[in-house]
């Protein structure tokens, strides 16, 4: 069976005045229906670029795909034309972004914005509106309006019909994110990329939005890539997690396996850096050093310069990936040796 989303060995370079930065180097990730993958890592590690690449929203140039494939139901999106891509966006892949205050167009009613997405998706799949192909403009608009009301109700916006004619500034932040979720899902995509959907929200609203996301995944049988730098969000929401560092995935697997038995030194360091009640003030362990320069990345493991377990062989070539438990993969040979010893 082909996976919903299968990213294979993706390489992406960003051209700048100083040279080409290898921002993604061999990212591989496979997402099935009903899986929620958490993609975690620090700022600039390439998690957002990975997400944007699935919908081909990275501008080329300055970016350039130098290798790999992004298979969406077996089709490589890197080989599609822009019109072909447009047919997939919103209908096969939905996207939600970080800041709900800037991602809705301030000059249009939310009903208009929702309906336009529904109508665009219906151009490629009339069944979305529940109409026969060739239905008239009026009929399509009416159906889109009905669908917009249904979607808003589904994401928990009370009195949806009366709010359709409101403008974004008449909604609270949490409500706006609900509207954006409704917009992302109105084309019935089977894959949802959520790029830091809760980062701009306060904690209680954050929990509501994450719960809503989980409900939506269950109700619509979707696969999700949830991009975040918050391991708490991952633990709360995801079925799987992939940890990214400087353009590579260093560890991935089912959430229980990775959190209970973090194998990569970077994952371990991330988990140690989470404050918790048992840790006394001043004892929280940060991670020394800085992210490597991606224009001239270290030749071997990109984490090696900051790694406590690093040995000379780590600097020589890319670290081999080994499977620690079923589906639990780690890109670090040293851990394996330490474990076996």
């Amino acid at each position, binding site marked *: 069976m082909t996976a919903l989303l299968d990213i294979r060995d993706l390489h992406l370079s960003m051209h700048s005045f100083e040279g080409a930065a290898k921002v993604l180097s061999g990212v591989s990730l496979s997402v099935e229906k009903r899986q929620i993958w958490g993609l975690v890592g620090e700022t600039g590690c390439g998690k957002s670029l990975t997400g944007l690449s699935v919908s081909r929203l990275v501008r080329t140039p300055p970016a350039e795909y130098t290798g790999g494939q992004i298979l969406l139901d077996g089709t490589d999106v890197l080989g599609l034309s822009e019109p072909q891509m447009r047919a997939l966006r919103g209908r096969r892949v939905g*996207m939600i972004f970080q800041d709900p205050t800037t991602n*809705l*167009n301030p000059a249009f009613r939310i009903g208009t914005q929702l309906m336009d997405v529904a109508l665009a*998706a219906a151009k490629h799949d009339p069944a979305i509106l529940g109409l026969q192909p060739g239905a008239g403009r009026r009929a399509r608009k009416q159906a889109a309006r009905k669908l917009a009301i249904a979607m808003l109700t589904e994401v928990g916006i009370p009195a949806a019909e009366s709010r359709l004619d409101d*403008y974004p500034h008449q909604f609270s932040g949490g409500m706006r994110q609900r509207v954006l979720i409704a917009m992302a899902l109105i084309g019935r995509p089977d894959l949802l990329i959520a790029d830091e959907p809760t980062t701009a929200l306060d904690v209680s609203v954050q929990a509501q939005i994450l719960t809503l996301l989980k409900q939506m995944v269950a109700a619509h049988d979707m696969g999700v890539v949830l991009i975040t730098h918050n391991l708490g969000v991952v633990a709360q929401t995801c079925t799987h997690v992939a940890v990214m560092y400087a353009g590579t995935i260093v560890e991935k697997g089912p959430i229980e396996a990775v959190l209970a038995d973090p194998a990569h030194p970077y994952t371990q360091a991330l988990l140690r850096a989470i404050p918790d009640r048992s840790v006394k003030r001043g004892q929280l362990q940060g991670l020394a050093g800085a992210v490597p320069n991606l224009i001239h990345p270290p030749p071997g493991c990109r984490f090696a310069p900051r790694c406590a377990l690093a040995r000379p062989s780590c600097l020589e070539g890319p670290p081999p990936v080994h499977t620690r438990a079923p589906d639990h993969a780690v890109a670090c040979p040293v851990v394996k040796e330490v474990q076996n010893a």
Partner: protein
Amino acid sequence: MLRFILRRILLILPVLIGMTIIMFVIARVLPGDPVGLAAGPNATRAEIEALAREFGLDQPLWVQYWTYLSGLVQGDFGTSLFSRRPVATDLAAYLPATLELVFSALLLAILVGIPAGLMAAVWRNKWPDYLSNILSVAAISMPRFFLGLLLQLCFAMWLMWLPLGGRFPIIFDPPPGVTGFYTIDSIIAGDWDSFWTALRYLALPAIAMSLSPLATILRMMRASTIEVMHQDYVTTARALGLSPRLIVFKYVLRNAISSSLTVIGLYFGWLLGGTVLVETVFDWPGIGLYATSAIVSQDFMPVVSVALVIGVLFVTANIVIDVLYGLINPKVRYQ
């Protein structure tokens, strides 16, 4: 919305009263002897004094002002010292010509400038952008009267496509006056020949006046479109499969247009005040030409009145722009 408009109108009253005071005082403290000039070179002292008395110019300044202001409220703009015609009658004859010219110039600037700016932004750093850049710099840096002369030379003298000046051929009757705009009046009368003629006379002065606002609107529109296209909501719209056409012409356009609106409002005043030169070059019978001749003969009632009318129109235009802001950007409304 209505309350917003009413409040704005109430707020401009003090502005207008202040304007009448300043204009009135300036017109009278200027050096020169308008009464003597009007009475003629051979007038006796007694005749000059009689003329001054007739126009109430022997009264103290504040009495004169009060007479003027109470006349204004009743629609009386005073009387010309020279022609002895009420200024209001003259304004009614000349103002429509100027307004027709200004509105056509502005309309041309908007209809060309906004789409062209949008296109320049969409094709940024490609040849349409470079071309529009060069043309708009040229248009902005060329003085209007010079541009007018160039257009006359090219289209009226060499090519002989369009008339050199004037508003309508003297030998024909202009269309029956409803709005005072010959183009609109001839449409109302269903007289297409007159419409075509009026349009031919309007073309050159309107183009001469429109190029500078056109270029400014184009550049504004380009800059704000580029800014809007980098907004998150445009990425979201793209990510959810909307077509580039829908995104640019619907979602980007409305957000990008508001900065151009400001420019349009300002240019309206600029054009009104700046018709003098273009009207002179094209012999266009508008308030610019009227004001020039009044200034030359120190006939101050027409001068004050023209300034006042321009002021009122400018302020009104800015209220209209404010209302349009509210229509385009819902966040401005009700505030």
